[in-house]
């Protein structure tokens, strides 16, 4: 790992066709009629973003009031790559279904209960189903396939209160929530509301698995926020596979357990 780090380039820049050229592409619309003045405005914005030189390679009027621009240019910004504290490798071991089952069996000595849902008005169930349904995702079977996991998939457009009630009723170890619609920040808003509701419902809890269920949220466009922002224990994004999720749950709820190779 450290050796790893040493070998990592310290400072990097965008790459067009030559190391260090710093070239990027940008596109945007400005709410002004097309013309030299609009193109000057586009260059001004591009420079504001750090492009220098900035070349407006395309400008197209979209009706009388809007213009679309494509700009290419070089940015001076340096990226402190070595300074990024994202681990190169995995944070927790990726387990096979049988390892997950074994962990639950040996340590919990009962089935692990998972409750899943699309909350709010979101009806995009394909994502959560990909994680939960036996059918699974990308060739991997979903959590329903795990012998030691008991799955309650509440489906789409579930009210937060209904979710909390259900989670309590079945003594959920983990609650899995999906949010796909992000317009007007719907996903963030709904998730925070959900997290809040669980805190209220488990006042004595000190954290995920410690007095309240583990709160896991997922969806394709959560990459602008962190778990702490939302008050959840983990966020999963684009292309998540069921094994990722199962492994995390074990890692979080049964930390003492280690897979013996």
């Amino acid at each position, binding site marked *: 790992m450290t050796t790893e780090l040493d070998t990592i380039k310290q400072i990097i820049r965008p790459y067009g066709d030559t190391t260090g050229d710093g070239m990027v592409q940008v596109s945007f619309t400005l709410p002004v009629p097309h013309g030299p003045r609009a193109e000057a405005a586009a260059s001004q914005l591009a420079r504001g973003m750090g492009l220098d030189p900035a070349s407006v390679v395309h400008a197209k009027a979209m009706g009388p009031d809007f213009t*679309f621009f494509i700009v290419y240019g070089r940015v001076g910004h340096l990226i402190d790559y070595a300074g990024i504290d994202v681990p190169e490798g995995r944070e927790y071991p990726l387990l096979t279904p049988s390892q997950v089952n074994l962990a639950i069996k040996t340590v919990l000595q009962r089935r692990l209960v998972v409750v899943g849902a699309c909350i709010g008005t979101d009806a995009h169930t394909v994502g959560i189903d990909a994680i939960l349904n036996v059918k699974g995702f990308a060739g991997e079977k979903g959590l329903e396939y795990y012998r030691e996991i008991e799955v309650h998939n509440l*489906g789409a457009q579930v009210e937060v209160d209904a979710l909390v009630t259900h989670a309590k009723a079945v003594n959920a170890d983990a609650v899995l929530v999906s949010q796909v619609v992000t317009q007007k920040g719907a996903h963030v808003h709904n998730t925070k509301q959900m997290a809040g509701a669980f805190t209220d419902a488990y006042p004595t809890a000190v954290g995920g698995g410690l007095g309240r269920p583990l709160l896991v949220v997922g969806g394709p466009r959560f990459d602008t926020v962190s778990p702490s922002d939302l008050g959840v224990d983990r966020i999963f994004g684009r292309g998540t596979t069921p094994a990722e999720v199962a492994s995390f749950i074990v890692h979080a709820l049964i930390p003492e357990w280690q897979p013996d190779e």
Partner: protein
Amino acid sequence: MKLGLDPAVIAKARTLAARAAEPVIELARTHTTVSVERAVLRLAGVTGADADGTPWVNRITDAVREQAGLDHGVALPVFHALNEHGLSLDDPLSLLAARFTVPNGGQAVRARTRARAAVARGIATIDHNRAERQRLLGKHGDPEMPWIYLIVATGDIYEDIPQAQAAAREGADVIAVIRSTGQSLLDYVPEGATRQGYAGTYATQENFRLMRAALDDVSGELGRYVRLTNYASGLCMPEIATLAGLERLDMMLNDCMYGIIFRDINPIRTFVDQRFSRQVHARAGIVINTGEDNYLTTADAVDAAHTVIASQLLNERFGHEAGLADWQLGLGHAFEINPEIPDSFRMELAHAQLVRELFPDAPLKYMPPTKHMTGNIFAGYLLDAFFNLAGVLTGQSILLIGMMTEGIHTPWLSDRDLALANVRYVRRAVGALHEDFVPAPGGFTVERARQVLSETVDLLDRVCDSSLLTAIAEGTFGVTRRPPDRGKGLDGVIRHADAYYNPATQILEEDA
């Protein structure tokens, strides 16, 4: 006909679809729903909402249900009350103060007559709008097919309007205002102009009016009648269909099963609602768009290709029974095959050509790739181009224009502009290339089409053996299981009493 399909097989498929549909049609004939009854009140002229925004039609229908039940319909008790207390529908508050009972004898006759007269006025408005559409089509001109269909979805009707007009100027023939995520499960239709929706804008009578007026303006400017579309779908399907007729919308998303599968709405509720809404659409000269395309977002587009065809045949049957003509059946399908697999485009051509040949007179609605659209906007723009190409080569009627940002956000102004440039190029560059598209006899394309058709027949066979409701319960469509005794809105379904009276269906069926 390029695929040389066997007419006998096609005929068999239609017979099976009719047989599968029959029991469900019987159900629809013998039941009503709260939304059907509210639609009757809307036709009779009830508008507006109370202080909390609950529409008067809901307040009245609920009161009637509570006091007299709905098994005779809402019309008899309401118009009886109006007669008794000398009230009019313009004064819902006093009406609600009255006590509702089911009249009989001469009172019933009077109530029926007055109800019918009131509803007839509503239907007259719908007839007038249909005539007006014809006039404007003549005046501004009717674009030739394929119609370019674009969505707007800012959530704010006042942002939607300029965007819709911009889209029309750039070449859109049809504008669809998609709805806020939650609306389909609301058991009432919101009132007034709305500015805050999630990933869509609420469908309200006022929003309909504002957008239709705005599009009439551009239609004049462009010398081309620009059509408006919305969704007669969800728990208020009958009412929204009615509002569409009253505000001269031109097309409506309206499917016999979509609500069941994708909104977990009770099957019986949906089948009853869709029949009434289609009777209204038939009268209004509205083209419906069905939702088979959605199946391919949850099921695989290759494995489930035949479920799309089976569903189209069912939608056709239910549509015809409700009085829709072929030119009103915008059957839906989609370009959703995984672009990573070999021959994906050739298979899309086979599927699209098959649908075209099965429904030669239907204004087919062809949906662009959505499921396999990722954050790679370049790959997306490319895939949309091939969708446009498939649409033109197979003579689709309504092309819903794909957005390169489908995998990311609801369309931006620039996304739409680029999408239109994409389809404009494809149409212009390709011209009449379909003349040179001649599937090789016995070749891949022809064989694929034949296979899908025979799988369709097998599926419909199985459906007939059990029943359509069972098939839906078993997850036949969109790999989603929906049992008939579950789902939202079941409590809003009421079996007709023998003396059930519905002036709207009466008029619509006798004139049909």
